[in-house]
């Protein structure tokens, strides 16, 4: 089982962000939130505490905003509620502006062994245009500092930003390629209700259209490939097998518990008969509320993990089957032909230019990954 801990606070909200996060924010809000979070973790531990934990991920928002003390309170709750083996992957998402030597040393002492740094761009015009609070210089400095303490570092980039062109993309990837083990590249999406949407609508900011975006993305892919990065998932690239163990768990449908505001979980509860043998497995996806006050109330009033108000989706066999395919196809390892059954033929006949035959598996190639939804709609 994997654990995800959501820290929904940011120093300021980026213009493109439609994720549930709060520009930071009064200390007491963080204090209340962490109390709630710890409560949820404790209650979950009573039910799932004996599960074998394989990775932990602190995401946000900006987890690196937390003080050492705040971070430690969450970490000790996790350690008290779950059995955490040594050397499992523990990642903390950090933003360049809120991470420093002191905090990094502390993370390391707590067992954190992977840092994911939200760089997004190394062009200061871009960073300004999307409301990031750091600049290129800070980002590069912070990468060097992180490297001193961690040998597993990932950075995020967004392509399709206002000042992006092939040269900008090439430069920024080359600037970090030798220093990091893992890079995530996302295409900018202008979401409804974000400040970026208003800026784009009003013409104040011009972003790449779909064709330009994919051109930039393909440029990024080819620069990454020559720098020795393997595109092992739709948006993720790793050097020397430094895959994100945690994220791979999502694609392989491992169990995970998400804690905090709007966090998601996949749980597989065994249904036992009177003799204690497994009758069946009940698989369900849960999603926590995205209302801050409700979350705090839930945490205060709940005496059981299940008391929290969550969206719940119980998965039947057909849904599980579809999920297995749609998620595994995101990875370059592909899907078993046995699992695909008759779909193998459809893939081979209709989508030949987009697939790779790997013997007992079929995977999507780069172009195929980029149009994955189109293919899924056809085969699911």
């Amino acid at each position, binding site marked *: 089982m994997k654990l*995800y801990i959501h820290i929904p606070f940011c120093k300021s909200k980026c213009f493109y962000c439609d994720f549930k996060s709060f520009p930071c924010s009064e200390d007491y809000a963080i204090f209340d939130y962490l109390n709630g979070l710890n409560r949820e973790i404790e209650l979950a531990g009573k039910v799932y505490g004996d599960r074998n934990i394989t990775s932990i991920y602190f995401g946000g928002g900006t987890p690196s905003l937390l003080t050492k003390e705040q971070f430690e309170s969450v970490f000790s709750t996790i350690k008290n509620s779950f059995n955490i083996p040594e050397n499992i992957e523990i990642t903390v998402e950090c933003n360049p502006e809120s991470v420093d030597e002191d905090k990094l040393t502390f993370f390391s002492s707590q067992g954190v062994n992977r840092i994911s740094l939200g760089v997004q761009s190394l062009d200061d015009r871009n960073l300004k245009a999307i409301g990031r609070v750091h600049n290129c210089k800070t980002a590069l400095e912070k990468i060097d500092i992180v490297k001193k303490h961690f040998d597993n570092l990932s950075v995020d980039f967004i392509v399709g930003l206002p000042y992006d062109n092939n040269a900008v993309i090439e430069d920024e990837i080359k600037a970090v390629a030798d220093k990091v083990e893992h890079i995530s590249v996302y295409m900018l999406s202008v979401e409804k209700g974000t400040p970026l949407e208003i800026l784009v609508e009003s013409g104040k900011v011009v972003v790449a259209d779909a*064709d330009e975006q994919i051109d930039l993305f393909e440029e990024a892919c080819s620069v990454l490939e020559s720098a020795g990065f393997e595109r092992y998932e739709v948006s993720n690239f790793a050097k020397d097998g430094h895959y994100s163990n945690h994220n791979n768990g*999502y694609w392989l449908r491992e169990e995970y518990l998400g804690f905090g505001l709007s966090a998601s979980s996949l749980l597989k509860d065994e249904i036992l008969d009177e003799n204690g043998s497994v009758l069946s497995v009940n698989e369900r996806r849960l999603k926590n509320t995205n209302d801050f006050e409700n979350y705090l109330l839930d945490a205060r009033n709940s005496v059981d993990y299940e008391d929290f108000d969550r969206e719940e*989706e119980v998965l039947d066999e057909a849904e599980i089957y579809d999920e297995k395919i749609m998620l595994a196809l995101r990875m370059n390892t592909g899907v078993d032909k046995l699992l695909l059954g008759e779909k193998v033929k459809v893939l081979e006949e209709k989508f030949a230019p987009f697939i790779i035959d790997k013997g007992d598996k079929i995977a999507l190639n780069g172009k195929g990954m980029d*149009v994955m939804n*189109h293919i*899924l709609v056809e085969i699911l």
Partner: protein
Amino acid sequence: MSLDKIRNFSIIAHIDHGKSTLADRLIEKTGTVAARDMSSQLLDNMDIEKERGITIKLQTCRLFHTHNGEEYTLNLIDTPGHVDFTYEVSRSLAACEGALLVVDATQGVEAQTLSNVYLALDNDLEIVPVINKIDLASADIEGTKAEIEDIIGLDTEGCPLISAKEGLGVDDVLDAIIEKLPAPQGDKDAPLKALIFDSFYDNYRGAISMVRIVDGMVRVGDRIRMMSTDKEFDVVEVGVFSPSMKSTGKLEAGEVGYIGASIKNVSDTAVGDTITRVDHAAKEPLPGYKKATPMVYTGIFPADGARYNDLKEALLKLQLNDASISFEQETSLALGFGFRCGFLGLLHMEIIEERLEREFDLDIITTAPSVQYIVTKTNGEKLDVANPTNLPPAGEIDYIEEPIVKASVFSPPEYVGQIMELCQDKRGTFVDMTYVDTSRVQLTYTIPLNEIIYDFFDKLKSRTRGYASLDYEMAGYQKSDLVRLDMLINGDMCDALSIIVHKDKAYARGRGIAEKLKDAIPRQLFEIPVQAAIGGKVIARETVKALRKDVLAKCYGGDITRKKKLLEKQKEGKKRMRRVGSVEIPSEAFVTILKVGDDD
């Protein structure tokens, strides 16, 4: 009831001159409907009628009015005002002895004022002019009177001057109906002759015939015979509309009402047929009507192919209510099974499409409207072609004739130049121009119907800022240089997108449609050429670029449900796609072609 206490009348007018409002006032004034139940445009039952402010179906209503101490029965038969519905007007007029001609004092005589007057005269009706909207500042009562006298030739001496909206002068109208319109003739002891002027389907009662009793009488329990088919039925209900159905047990010569006889098929109550009694049968039927001839044809297909039978049921039901709709099965490679439907005009078509969607909850796809062409093949064979797909190959065609109409346009003189330009552009031939008075010109052109149904009316309205009015009637066929314009999608012809068009306009239309299709066809994994072609020769080309990005990249802390929802939505959209060769086209794409103008 004595015949001289009955008046059967219609109200005729150009569209928007206030016909339905006057009908409301008459119903209100005679106390037929209590004031609290009055809703605007009472006789317009359909939602579409109220929303669009127009009358589509004719309706009847029985009113009681006391005049000089005597009680009279007034049967009002409301009529549609739009040019498409001339056929319905002529049916209602045949059930009347007189008509009120409503003329808007701010507009004067318009194109359909005249055409309705001609219809009324054809039916030997007495016509009483009524000048409406006299309360408006721009009303020109004297000018309107002069137009009625000069153009129509009716005496306006003492004609009612009213404001139907404000309820002014309505009593004068009631007096005029009784004093100036003739009472019906007819012998209630003679064999029954009841003219069916409309019919509709009621879910509980079956097909109901709306009738004018010309001679004789009919009661509940009578056995009746439809004279055109000799089918017999037992009368279970007889009544009048006031304005809802009200059972009276019998109807006599001179009266207007309905007959219910547990008739299952609307086709057994054919409009224009004569009903007689089996025990006291008439020898000859009444003259009846000419069958309405459809002017505009279009293919109608269910968006969900599985609902073909629902569409068929719906069309049959609508046909019960509206005998002027015709339809026959059509098969399209792209759209599957559907129907080629004939309509009286574009508005009629739009209304039926809207009713199919609203009243029957159907999603439909319609193809571009067409007229009926007469094709003479080189071997001398003649074909009627209302579906472009059925046009023989160019090599087999000797010549094609297309229907033309005589169009008359009324307009203030300052727009004459614009109108002439438009008519010219629409391949019109000038016939005549007359100054009706200093403020009004009547222009007459013959124009191919195919141009009229396309966008003529919209263009006319926009070029004359809404001042011009249009009326048209069929004026035969003429030879024309017509071609079939096909659309090829990824090299495959899409039959549902073919149109027949004049050779000189083919290029512009082809280019316009290709451009619209390019935007309407979603990108697919390969590049899709969209071409317009005439007889295999490509005249325009656009390209739908290949799809390169369709993936939800970001995974927010394992929120898989969001990805699944997005996929579900995409799958739903895919269900509504039609296949042309290897290309998927959303149903909406077929509609976009209807919106391509010559200047696009």
